[in-house]
């Protein structure tokens, strides 16, 4: 159905990729638009860019609305620029589930990098895509990476699975917390604690900052606790004080990153430099411990899975159309002529047959190039 050219590069697209690699801002912007729109041929573009990626430190910043993410991103970008790094920012805002419209306001805070084209700031909206948002963000990051940005920041509101997925496309994840944002039970919610490599108490000049800092410190240590406990349980089967245990323990100590808690006042820029140092420390840790390879591989695995799932989903959607459309099928189930399971089996049947025929060794030209 797709033909073998899902990742083929058209002449225009090849030119666009060439312009992007040559440093044209316009081409970079245009490529990100194609990625967002899923314009025909965008896969070829991303595929062509892939080999040029891998040079950037990717940092994800998440936190509740009003925690100061945009302001902090602005100051971070300017601090990176001060030391000569170029910066890309992808800011993700929610869109209306009713009209699809969105007001993307993160740009308002970008006041420190006026007219500096080496800070490439791009707003993206969720566009109601199921799981597609993290895909689009990851691809936009690739475009910025291939363009040659040294540091790439992904900024998103930390509410719900979608945003967590988005932020997980980063190497280093910072979770922003503002003082007085509730007791420690709030922080336990929604898996926020597990995704953070660095926790930042922003607006640290406000009342209650010390307490929030202390609570986070405690949380982070408690988070370390359970894993260690499990390790202990495992080791419990072995003879205590066995000589082999020593090396085991050492490896554990160096491979495990213990989350840092930092404090910033994004408005004034206080603490931003030391925050960047922490980011660097984490990046160095990832590289030296080899964890970066594992992280990247896990991310690519996820990416492949998402792509395959969405492609297979598209096949299924086409198959539903061939069977008369979802409305007609639903109507026949409502009239008790059939049931949802039988309908699903009927639709998936032909696809499954093709796959099985393929597995039996039949040569199919499509399968060779399908990504």
């Amino acid at each position, binding site marked *: 159905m*797709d033909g073998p050219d899902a990742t083929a590069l058209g002449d225009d697209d090849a030119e666009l990729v060439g312009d992007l690699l040559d440093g044209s*801002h316009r081409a970079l912007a245009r490529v990100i638009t194609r990625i967002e729109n899923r314009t025909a041929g965008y896969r070829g573009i991303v595929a062509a860019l892939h080999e040029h990626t891998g040079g950037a430190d990717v940092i994800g910043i998440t936190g509740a609305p009003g925690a100061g993410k945009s302001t902090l991103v602005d100051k971070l970008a300017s601090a990176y620029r001060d030391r000569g790094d170029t910066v890309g920012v992808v800011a993700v805002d929610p869109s209306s589930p009713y009209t699809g*419209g969105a*007001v993307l306001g993160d740009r308002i805070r970008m006041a420190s990098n006026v007219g500096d084209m080496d800070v490439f*700031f791009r707003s993206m909206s969720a566009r109601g895509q199921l799981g597609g948002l993290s895909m689009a963000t990851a691809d936009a990051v690739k475009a910025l990476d291939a363009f040659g940005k040294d540091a790439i920041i992904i900024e998103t509101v930390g509410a719900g699975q979608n945003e967590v997925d988005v932020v997980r496309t980063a190497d280093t994840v910072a979770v922003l917390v503002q003082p007085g944002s509730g007791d420690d039970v709030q922080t336990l919610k929604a898996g926020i604690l597990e995704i953070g490599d660095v926790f930042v108490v922003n607006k640290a000049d406000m009342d209650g900052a010390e307490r929030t800092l202390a609570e986070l410190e405690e949380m982070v240590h408690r988070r370390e606790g359970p894993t260690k406990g499990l390790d202990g349980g495992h080791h419990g089967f072995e003879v205590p004080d066995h000589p082999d245990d020593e090396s085991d323990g050492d490896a554990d100590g160096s491979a495990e990153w213990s989350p840092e808690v930092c404090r910033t006042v994004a408005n004034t820029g206080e603490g931003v430099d030391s925050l960047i140092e922490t980011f660097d420390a984490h990046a160095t840790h990832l590289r030296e411990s080899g964890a970066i390879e594992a992280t990247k591989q896990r991310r690519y695995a996820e990416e492949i899975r998402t792509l395959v799932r969405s492609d297979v989903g*598209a096949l299924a959607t086409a198959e539903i159309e061939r069977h008369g459309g979802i409305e007609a099928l639903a109507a026949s189930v409502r009239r008790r002529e059939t049931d949802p399971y039988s309908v699903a089996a009927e639709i998936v049947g032909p696809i499954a047959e093709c796959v099985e025929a393929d597995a039996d060794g039949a040569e199919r030209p499509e399968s060779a190039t399908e990504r």
Partner: protein
Amino acid sequence: MSAEQETQAVRCLVAKVGLDGHDRGAHVIARAFRDAGFEVVYSGLHRAPDEIVQAAVQEDVDVLGISILSGAHNTLVPKVIEGLKEYDAFEDTLVLVGGIIPDDDETELKKLGVAEVFGPGTPMEETIEFIRNNLPERA
């Protein structure tokens, strides 16, 4: 891949340029655009022409709506348009101006490449309709 759904959206930049602190109109427009299903990037107040150009290029917007109520449109709008041309972005960006613009100036602005000028009291639907009908063709 043909089966994959394209999800195109109209992207607009609503920009306040120069020393002009009146942003109620820009807010109302931004909201109306959002409700029309557009993706609206709002620039914030007191932006320099350079910043507007930077934002329009990086965000790759289809529509650039400049709101000016300070009377400085004859200085500021040409700078923005020049900047867009510099980045090769003028051809496929629909440039609109909103605000209080005298008739003579309106003619001049349109000669420069502004697609339309919307004065006070323009119904929201008219602006949205105009955008829908005049969206630049993009490759």
